[in-house]
């Protein structure tokens, strides 16, 4: 059976060029980058190159890149890192649709006595900028709003928000884990002070990521030890992982326009063909301010986990925001924040595309989806037949 992977927002296969770049760094160029001998300096040089690749891809300087163990740690570092430098400032602003890496970091800080404003979004998932601006206080330390949402793909007006933050002299962080490689991400154009990236979302290896920290932004570390990464992130550097991440960032930047055109074509074709062939369906998220690779749709009278599993049996991998599938039995906080009716949340599917998907995959997906929906609706007590 042909297997089709359409869950690129969860993770991506590592590009073969990335694997090739990594391979020498396991058993040949294996030194510890802190070591003084040539095994060490070879490793340190590889890190420098990767740092430049990452920096170049987002218009930053190499010294503004801190390597981390992934997007989650980057988000933690950005938000918790500014807190100690803002003793009196105990207020944080974020949005209701952030990734758990941001939301749970915020609740941790709440448990320590910080105050957090969670700004709402409209039905398409766009943050309410007016409310955001109004919630700024004298003691606001940081604003963190994601560039693009991982579930519905909605792209936020980051330039506008960063402008507001700058006006009020507040640090601004964006989680760009989902946007890198899909839409342009340039730290100056976006006007951000900090920006999170994760390697495994852009065809790089898992377990590595970066936080961009604009020169002059004061943060303190959240992991303590041998003072790697200029003291901002201790722990022996994951050289092979970072090398792969660097290569993946270089490829993401090089292929951005080609990839995004390709993904947009597949995305739009998938959406219109689903609308054409399946009834009682809706598109979740913004119709146009949307990642080129995100299709999030809801099907009435069909439940998410069942759809996902039937699709998987046909070789197609997708994800769902339904309560039945998540390990916590909690429906997606993002779909709820978009005020999508429960019955639609219950039948939501996210199909997230990648550069290796083809139009054939879209055909296959549409067929599989039709079969799945038909089968499930046939046994639903609710469907009008």
């Amino acid at each position, binding site marked *: 059976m042909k297997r089709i992977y359409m869950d690129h927002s969860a993770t991506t296969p590592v590009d073969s060029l990335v694997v090739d770049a990594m391979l020498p760094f396991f058993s040949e160029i294996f030194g510890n980058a802190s070591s*003084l001998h*040539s095994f060490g*300096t*070879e490793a340190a*040089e590889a890190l420098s190159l990767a740092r430049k690749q990452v920096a170049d891809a987002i218009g930053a300087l190499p010294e503004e890149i801190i390597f981390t163990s992934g997007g989650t740690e980057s988000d933690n570092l950005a938000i918790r890192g500014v807190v100690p430098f803002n003793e009196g400032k105990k207020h944080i602003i974020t949005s209701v649709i952030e990734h758990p890496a941001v939301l749970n970091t915020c609740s941790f800080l709440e448990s320590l006595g910080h105050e957090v404003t969670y700004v709402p979004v409209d039905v398409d998932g766009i943050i309410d900028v007016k409310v955001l601006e109004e919630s700024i206080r004298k003691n606001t330390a940081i604003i963190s709003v994601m560039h693009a949402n991982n579930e519905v793909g909605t792209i936020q007006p980051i330039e506008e928000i960063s402008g507001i933050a700058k006006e009020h002299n507040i640090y601004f962080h964006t989680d760009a884990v989902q946007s890198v490689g899909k839409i342009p991400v340039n730290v100056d154009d976006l006007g951000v002070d900090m920006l999170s990236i994760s390697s495994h979302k852009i065809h790089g290896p898992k377990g590595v990521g970066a936080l961009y920290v604009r020169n002059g932004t004061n943060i303190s570390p959240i992991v303590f030890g041998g003072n790697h990464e200029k003291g901002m992130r201790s722990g022996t550097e994951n050289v092979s992982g970072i090398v792969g991440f660097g290569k993946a960032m270089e490829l993401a930047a090089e292929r951005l326009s080609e990839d995004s055109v390709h993904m947009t074509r597949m995305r739009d074709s998938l959406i219109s063909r689903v609308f054409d062939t399946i009834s009682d369906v809706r598109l979740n998220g913004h119709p146009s301010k949307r990642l080129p690779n995100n299709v999030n749709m809801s099907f009435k009278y069909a439940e998410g986990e069942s759809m996902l599993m039937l699709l998987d049996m046909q070789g197609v991998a997708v994800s769902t925001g339904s309560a039945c599938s998540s390990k916590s039995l909690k429906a997606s906080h993002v779909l709820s924040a978009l005020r999508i009716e429960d019955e639609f949340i219950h039948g939501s599917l996210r199909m997230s595309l990648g550069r290796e998907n083809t139009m054939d995959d879209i055909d296959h997906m549409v067929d599989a989806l039709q079969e799945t929906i038909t089968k499930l609706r046939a046994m639903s007590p609710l469907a009008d037949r």
Partner: protein
Amino acid sequence: MKFPYTEKVLEHFKNPRNVGKLENPDGKGLEGSPACGDMVAVYLQVNPDTQVIEDIKFESYGCASNIATASIITELAKGKTIEEAKKISWQEATEELGGLPPVKAHCSVLAVEGLRAAIRDYEEKHGLVSEQEPTTVDVIRSRLKHVMNPMAGL
């Protein structure tokens, strides 16, 4: 070979010039760096008529850049008069080597201080100065102050 050093530093480290002692030196200096514990000794043979340094040797108990900076200092000083040699600065020595990592700037200071100590010794022995300031740890520290905090590193 990929150390944080320039080719020239590595070359002087591998093949240091003017290593050794002079049997009956006209001037002799031994300096230590409280920053790292390294030491350098410099020996001079000076032409009493022209004040030209005709021979110079060094010994080092120190890091690679200590050896390289001491080596380059002897090359720079050889053939110069005492007055000219006094003016050799650690920046000049560093530049001559194509630069040093910031954390190693003090090595160059140490080499220059070694040379200057030898010159002071010569001047004192030959009645060219009246009093000599003893080289205490405090004196060295104050000399190093513009380069680094000797105790905490950079």
